[in-house]
């Protein structure tokens, strides 16, 4: 038997275990995509929709309605006094117009929609009445990929996924194997401990490879993401992140035999980072005093580096400080974990 076959067989074991578990496949590959679709849709920056306006059903209402309908971007209905008041209260219309020699605009001044509706309706009606604009202008619409929420979100989700993948794929998996006494059984063979560790991490890396391709490919195809920097650099950062987080996963798995305990530890480590490391919104929104702490967290380092590369076109060299943070977390946790690790 060749020297590496123990490694190869252990790698095959981890991959088979992973690929043959539909639930795991869903959580690793399906869930982040669903999350991206859901959040991407919810926070889509849509062009302002047509404005709903009610015109009081009194003399002159038909003319006003015709003028507004001729202009673009209005949904107009003629309503009696009571119905109009109710429609405004319920938010079904943003503005009520009372026709007459002097037009009356009724709207809620604290509601941006109402203020906007007032301005647009007034503008349309004045123009219809013959107002000419003294200043010439033209409009340039900006929907630049790279500045939308979904562009911001995808690197965040990728980072989150790599962290939780390492925690479950390494930390949880090892404790589960210990609880089955499989670790002890393996320790009773001449298996090289380095093969076992190496195979566990190599399997994780392989999954990350697919994850990165899937997430970025999805962002590109479904959301038209434009990558301003090298996707290869992003992949490299993700692999480094996965290695670093595997160290953390190994560390939470060093002693306990109970999967409940390791689940708790995993939450303890990952939940705070999901919150402060800027997965869903920029970590810069947290108070100034905790910024150094937030910036030193490995998930922050990974996500910030990914965003810098993908959204701003930064190169790897410019991300060196963040790379060092990832290396430090990984290195320290590996050294500690290897000292503390129990096979039984």
């Amino acid at each position, binding site marked *: 038997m060749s020297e590496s*076959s123990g490694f190869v067989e252990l790698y095959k074991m981890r991959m088979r275990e992973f690929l043959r578990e539909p639930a795991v496949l869903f959580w690793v590959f399906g869930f982040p995509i669903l999350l991206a679709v859901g959040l991407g849709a919810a926070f889509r920056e849509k062009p302002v929709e047509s404005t709903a306006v009610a015109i009081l059903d009194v003399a002159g209402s038909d003319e006003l309605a015709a003028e507004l309908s001729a202009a673009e971007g209005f949904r107009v209905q003629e309503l009696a006094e009571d119905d109009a008041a109710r429609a405004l209260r319920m938010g079904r219309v943003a503005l009520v117009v009372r026709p007459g020699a002097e037009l009356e605009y009724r709207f809620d001044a604290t509601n941006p929609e109402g203020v906007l509706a007032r301005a647009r309706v007034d503008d349309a009606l004045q123009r219809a009445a013959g107002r000419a604009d003294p200043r010439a202008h033209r409009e340039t619409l900006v929907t630049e990929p790279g500045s939308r929420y979904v562009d911001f979100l995808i690197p965040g989700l990728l980072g989150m996924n790599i962290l939780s993948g390492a925690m479950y794929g390494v930390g949880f998996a090892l404790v589960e194997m210990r609880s089955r006494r499989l670790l002890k059984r393996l320790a009773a063979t001449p298996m090289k401990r380095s093969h076992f560790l190496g195979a566990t991490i190599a399997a994780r890396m392989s999954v990350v490879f697919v994850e990165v391709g899937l997430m970025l490919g999805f962002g590109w195809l479904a959301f038209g993401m434009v990558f301003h920097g090298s996707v290869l650099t992003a992949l490299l950062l993700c692999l480094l992140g996965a290695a670093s987080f595997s160290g953390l996963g190994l560390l939470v798995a060093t002693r306990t035999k109970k999967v409940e305990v390791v689940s708790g530890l995993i939450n303890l480590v990952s939940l705070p980072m999901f919150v402060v490391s800027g997965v869903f919104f920029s970590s810069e929104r947290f108070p100034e005093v905790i910024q150094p702490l937030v910036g030193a967290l490995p998930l922050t380092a990974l996500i910030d580096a990914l965003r810098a590369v993908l959204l701003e076109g930064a190169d790897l060299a410019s991300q060196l400080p963040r790379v060092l943070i990832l290396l430090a977390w990984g290195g320290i946790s590996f050294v500690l974990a290897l000292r503390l690790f129990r096979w039984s």
Partner: protein
Amino acid sequence: MASAIRVRELRMTYPGRPPVEAVRGLDLDVAAGSCFGLLGPNGAGKTTTIEILEGLLEPTAGDVEVLGMRWDRDARRLRERIGVTLQETKFTDKLSVRETLELFRSFFAQGVSAQDAIGLVGLGEKSASHVVTLSGGQRQRLAVACALVGGPELLFLDEPTTGLDPQSRRQLWDVVRSLRERGKTILLTTHYMDEAEKLCDAIAIVDHGRVIAQGTPTELIRSLGGDHVVEFAFGDGAASEESLATLRALPAVRSARADGDGYQLTVAEPHVALPAVLELAKARGATLSRLSTRHASLEDVFVALTGRHLRDE
């Protein structure tokens, strides 16, 4: 005969409050090529002892030699030459029998093929099945196959048939016997006296971390002084105050003890002892509510030595 395992004054104390003295001065000699049984009740220290011999636990004190080597110096070489089943191992559900064995095979420099190991334990039909679909007995045979792929000369089997149905137990016994015929040295632990009696050439009865008796099954049973056990009870409570001394004085009776509502005698010649028991009943005017005779077993040896049954848990 060469010694495969030699243990002197083995002690193991688990730290804790209070500390648990699991093994308290245990000696063992296992001859190469034999099937040796550690027989004892739950908590006797069998698993602790066997895991020390497997190099998985560090003893508190004592001298352990396995295949002429020592764990502190020769761990890697020893691992290549032993095969192990733990008391309970759950292999990976979603791997097939063959994949599991290929995994274990890959750790050893030499050994038998996965397919051969599957054949040795009679799992041929299940070769492609996932572990999750195996019965308890099949899983245990898979565990034995995993212990065999490295082609070990020494096998450790910790409670190989605990929790199995009678048919699965017999299948596993057949596997163990065939391995013994192939010249492997086997050390197994069990709390089933019939298992020890049927499988083992030599037995050490372990209780509270010590060996309290050692020998072949026949020797151990013979140590009772008689091969037969007579059990009886008098029908009415009034007549049942027979003193043990009276019973021991009956012809051919080697020992006597109270057992539930009646008595248990160890006898050398039932055809002599039985009439004497009947005579006694007649003299007392009592009826016998039960009377039976059987061959003495290791269970009787354990009871004679400790006053407890093996499975008194």
